[in-house]
């Protein structure tokens, strides 16, 4: 479903991704982990071209994301990739319901009535139907992130990407957001999730990618990766997190 091949990415002279090769299959949940600054956000943002790359290919559903796309085609492709940010990035001038309805109505030309029904169904799913009329600033961080997930789901994407969805939350709110992501995984959603929640990774991931300094150093099933990491950097990373 998503394939990185020989991806290189530079910020000026600093190389943030170094010859990245990896694949996310349909229905798979991939957790990306690694120390701060290792390039996790950069990698996940290349999937919908929020970050450009300098060489290599990123394929989504067989389509080359970074070459040969007209801007309208790129917009259509992005609409099919759900993206959830660390800082939620809800639109503060719109109510919760309008946040979720905006893109189905304006990008996919869904009728307002239908979009509103879908939005209410999704809000119900993330447990926030009673907040439909609230504005983002009136919600807790955990609630905002659940709305952000509902907003992404409203476009009915076959893939969801999460960039540290719980990192800016107070500890007591992490669980409610992870529960929503777990339920998506249970429904068979294809997902790529950057996270430091290793218990979550152990339970939900089909595959763990460990990154350091712009490279994917290790790819493995969670059981293997957590109990028996191969790369010394991965061993150090895990022992720093006290998960072993």
């Amino acid at each position, binding site marked *: 479903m998503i394939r990185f091949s020989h991806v290189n990415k530079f910020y000026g002279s600093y190389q943030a991704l170094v010859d990245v090769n990896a694949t996310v299959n349909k229905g798979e949940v991939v957790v990306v982990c690694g120390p701060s600054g290792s390039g996790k956000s950069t990698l996940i943002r290349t999937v919908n071209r929020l970050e450009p790359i300098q060489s290599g290919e990123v394929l989504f559903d067989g389509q080359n994301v970074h070459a040969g796309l007209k*801007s309208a085609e790129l*917009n259509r492709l992005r609409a099919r990739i759900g993206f959830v*940010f660390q800082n939620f990035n809800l639109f503060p001038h719109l109510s919760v319901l309008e946040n979720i309805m905006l893109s189905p109505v304006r990008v996919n030309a869904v009728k307002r009535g239908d979009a509103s029904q879908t939005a209410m169904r999704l809000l119900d799913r993330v447990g926030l139907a009673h907040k439909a009329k609230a504005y983002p600033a009136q919600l807790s961080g955990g609630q905002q992130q659940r709305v952000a997930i509902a907003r992404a789901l409203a476009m009915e994407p076959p893939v969801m990407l999460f960039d540290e969805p719980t990192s800016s939350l107070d500890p007591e709110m992490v669980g409610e957001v992870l529960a929503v992501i777990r339920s998506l995984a249970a429904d068979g959603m294809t997902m790529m999730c950057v996270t430091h929640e290793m218990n979550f990774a152990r339970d939900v991931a089909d595959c763990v990618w460990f990154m350091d300094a712009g490279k994917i150093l290790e790819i493995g099933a969670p059981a293997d990766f957590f109990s028996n990491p191969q790369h010394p950097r991965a061993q150090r990373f895990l022992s720093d997190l006290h998960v072993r």
Partner: protein
Amino acid sequence: MSMLSNMITIIEDNWLLLLIGQYPNGPLGGIASTLILSVLGIVLAFPLSVLIALARLSQWKVLNWPATALVYIVRGVPLLMLILWVYFLVPLLIGDSVPGFVTMLCTLVIYEGAFLSEIVRGGIIALPSGQMDAARALGHSHVGAMRYVILPQALYNMMPSILSQFVSTIKETTLGYVINVPELTFAASQLNNRLLTKPFEIFAILAIVYFIVCWSLSELANQLEQRIARQRLGDDQSGTGMLPPDAPKLQGAT
């Protein structure tokens, strides 16, 4: 004391002239004309300024260059010069003489358009980049993201600055005097020519009227600014966002 009573007499005898000029026997003038000119100027300059701002933020050189040049030139030239240029150029281009009011309006639209565009551009840049990222990630085009996500927030935050710019515009309309635009200053000077002996009283009235209008509008802008700042502060404590829950919606976004 006698100056004050003179002023009151002058107002009593000439309030209509100061209010609407020689209308209906001549063109509309006085403070009505000043306000109409300012409102039209800022209202017409506003869409222009948004376009200039978007052009300046564009990566396309064809848009970026002319817009940047326009802003730099207009900002680098005294308004009076711009008025004289429009005054002599527009009739040449149209081949017909143009009323002073229209000349002044054109000048103000260009001038305010350039200044407002800097305010609009600042307002857009000040928004967190995550807003644009989120809109693009959902599949909005650049234009769609601007229209539904960026501009409604930026314009709301900019309302106090736009109001201040409106106050400047009111003061700038006085320069229309040099090309005989019938407005408040023009009316006062007509009055002065007629009465001859009371320039202090007349121009004191003029100053007071301008001061009351501009000061109250500036005060409104301050209040608005404080309100928005307060709301933004409350927002920041909750961790996100630029706008308060009760923010008026500038555009029907969905």
